[in-house]
């Protein structure tokens, strides 16, 4: 044990001496979470509309004003041709075009159902659909309001209640997601470098001739980074609660436990990568190129996993961030207990064990292999 503590002390000195890296390690997650928490928003707002109004009468102008006053739209340009709408799309200035027919007002008041055409730039299909349905809703409500007699018939109406996130805040999804992303990548990148670095600088030889066992080396490498990662996790959680009003409905002990667990997963992954990589460059390339996009795309952070084709849904199970996000949203937002989150916790433990064993087996206390 004495050797182990001596080794941990050496690692800590290494880390603390490099002030720049230290600053990056702590400053970066904070800056990122602040930027994303404030900036990321999947709501569609403020979209430009190109209007081609063939009639220009009182009713059509009224409708335009209604659109202009909505939160979702502003009128970017008034067109006289369809080509003009297309040009606005090509320059990405407008997302939606609305074409009002001739005699719009008189047709409307005569009950002749004037045909309104809504065209959208569907190169972004999601946005195009959302905007079209917004515009349709605005137009229909407006038209309904122009009627003189309002019909009253018994109908069924729905009251949607948004459970867990009544204000539909995007932050509730982004904070756990960015947390998983940052912890996993920082953890994996930090540790994947250390062993590769000792190899590259030649100091690995010194460690190998010392009376340290290979588990001493691995655990000694992991311990300081584990503490750092955990500290990072706590900073991010506090920011989420203090700055972004995330709730903390579940048990704090479980939250701390799962942050410790996930940090360990990330470190085990890093050690595993570095035991395979022959240089720092390879280690970094794998931990950065190989982890960034899959973690964003397959963890359910942005795209819902149940929408993916089945093979990808299966692949998503080996993405550690997926399980961590489930645990965090469960604990913080839903206030779940162990009876609900035991499964993701168990999976994370399993992934960590597999990676850990593979890493210990792969770090060989020999050179030239």
């Amino acid at each position, binding site marked *: 044990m004495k050797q182990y503590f001596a080794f941990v002390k050496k690692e800590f000195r290494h880390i603390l001496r490099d002030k720049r890296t230290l600053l990056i390690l702590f400053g970066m997650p904070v800056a990122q979470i602040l930027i994303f928490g404030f900036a990321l928003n999947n709501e569609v707002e403020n979209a430009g509309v190109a209007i081609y109004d063939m009639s220009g009468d009182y009713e059509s102008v009224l409708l335009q004003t209604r659109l202009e006053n909505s939160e979702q739209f502003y009128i970017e340009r008034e067109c006289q041709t369809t080509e003009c709408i297309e040009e606005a799309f090509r320059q990405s200035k407008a997302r939606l075009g609305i074409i009002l027919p001739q005699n719009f007002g008189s047709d409307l008041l005569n009950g002749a159902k004037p045909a309104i055409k809504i065209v959208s730039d569907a190169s972004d299909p999601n946005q195009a659909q959302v905007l079209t349905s917004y515009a349709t809703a605005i137009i229909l409500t407006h038209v309904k309001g122009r009627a003189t007699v309002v019909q009253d018939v018994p109908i069924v109406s729905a009251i949607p209640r948004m459970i867990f996130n009544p204000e539909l805040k995007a932050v509730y999804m982004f904070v756990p997601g960015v947390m998983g992303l940052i912890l996993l990548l920082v953890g994996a990148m930090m540790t994947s470098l250390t062993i590769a670095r000792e190899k590259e600088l030649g100091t690995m030889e010194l460690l190998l001739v010392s009376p340290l066992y290979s588990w001493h080396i691995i655990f000694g490498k992991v311990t300081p980074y584990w503490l750092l990662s955990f500290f990072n996790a706590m900073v991010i959680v506090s920011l989420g609660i203090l700055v972004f009003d995330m709730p903390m409905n579940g048990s704090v002990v479980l939250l701390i436990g799962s942050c410790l667990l996930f940090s360990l997963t990330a470190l085990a992954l890093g050690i595993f990568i570095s035991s395979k990589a022959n240089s720092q460059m390879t280690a970094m390339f794998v931990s950065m190129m190989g982890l960034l996009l899959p973690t964003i795309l397959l963890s359910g952070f942005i*795209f819902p996993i149940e929408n993916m084709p089945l093979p990808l849904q299966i692949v998503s199970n080996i993405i550690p961030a997926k399980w961590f996000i489930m645990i965090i949203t469960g604990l913080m937002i839903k206030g779940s207990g162990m009876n609900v989150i035991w499964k993701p916790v168990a999976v994370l433990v399993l992934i960590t064990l597999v990676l850990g064993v593979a890493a210990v087996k792969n770090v060989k206390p020999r050179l030239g292999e």
Partner: protein
Amino acid sequence: MRALPHIVRKEFRQISRNRVMLPLLFLMPIVQLIILSYAADFEVKNVNMAIVDLDKTVTSQRLVSKFTSSGYFTQVGSFTNVKEAMLELEKENTDMILCIPKDLDADLNSLQPVKVQLLLNAVNNQKAGIASNYSMQVINAFNADRLKNMSLPQGVTPLSVDIRSEYWYNSELNYKTFMVPGILAILVTMLTAFLSSINIIREREMGTIEQLNVTPITKFEFILGKIIPFWIIGMLVMTFGLVIAYLLFDITTAGSLLTLYAFLAIYLIAVLGIGILISTVTETQQQAMFITWFFLVIFLLLSGLFTPVDSIPEWAKFINHFNPIKYFVEVMRMVMLKGSTFADISYHFLVMTGFAIFYIVSAMRSYSKTSG
């Protein structure tokens, strides 16, 4: 300039000798492009729905079957009280609970409006919004069915409009068409930024930079020699990506390929310039990597690849003016999907040229041949 071809050749040799890196360089982006393009889909095709039906009449059953036959909803269970159903919601076994009150049928028959309750798991705000929209459509259709049999009072003209919607450029609303160009842009960016940002620092850490410093190579030749190989790799990976986009996802470039490549050429210079600049101001490979990663993640998530850029706050829009990835993702989508011409993207072009010049000059200035 006579030394230039030699440096380029040296760099290429170095890259091609690394047996681990070489396949990674090309395989990793391509494999990710293929796999991840299938993952990126916002369209909510199926909402799992649990039912708490307290009415249990023909009318309430008709409402439920209106939901299940709409194609959006799958019934995953039926409960006698809300509490049980809520536990399922918490475990994510269901996305929504439809609660039908006890007197649905009786109230409708006595001409009373009725309110049914939808409980939605809103942790993912977007999904909840879409599910709630679908439900409204179903309920509207249910109402319309009932109203069909009722007649309007005399002398009332119903005001209505006929709304037709058209989806341009992607009439099938295929999400992959939208995501593939964006993902390709990110992969090319990550690859080139990574390679360039640790290149010089690596030579310094390994001590080989000293050998280059004592040669008569000028700073300009040195930086250019470092950039050209990665520039070529970037162009190659992009070309592979475009071929795959065509073969696998049937995406062709609507605009001119020349415009696309012209922009890519400038863009790669800017990205490589940033990478080299980072490489010259850091002390270790580790630092270089972390700084690159920091900017990459911020630029990537703000680029509009995943979330619309129209709705971010003003200060973030300001940051975005300096975000090269945002311009590239936009240009890729504009040229590939909408057929935007050179004139349409001239602003992007101008800004990117400015970036390229700025970063290359900065990199050259900050690189010093003297050590210590």
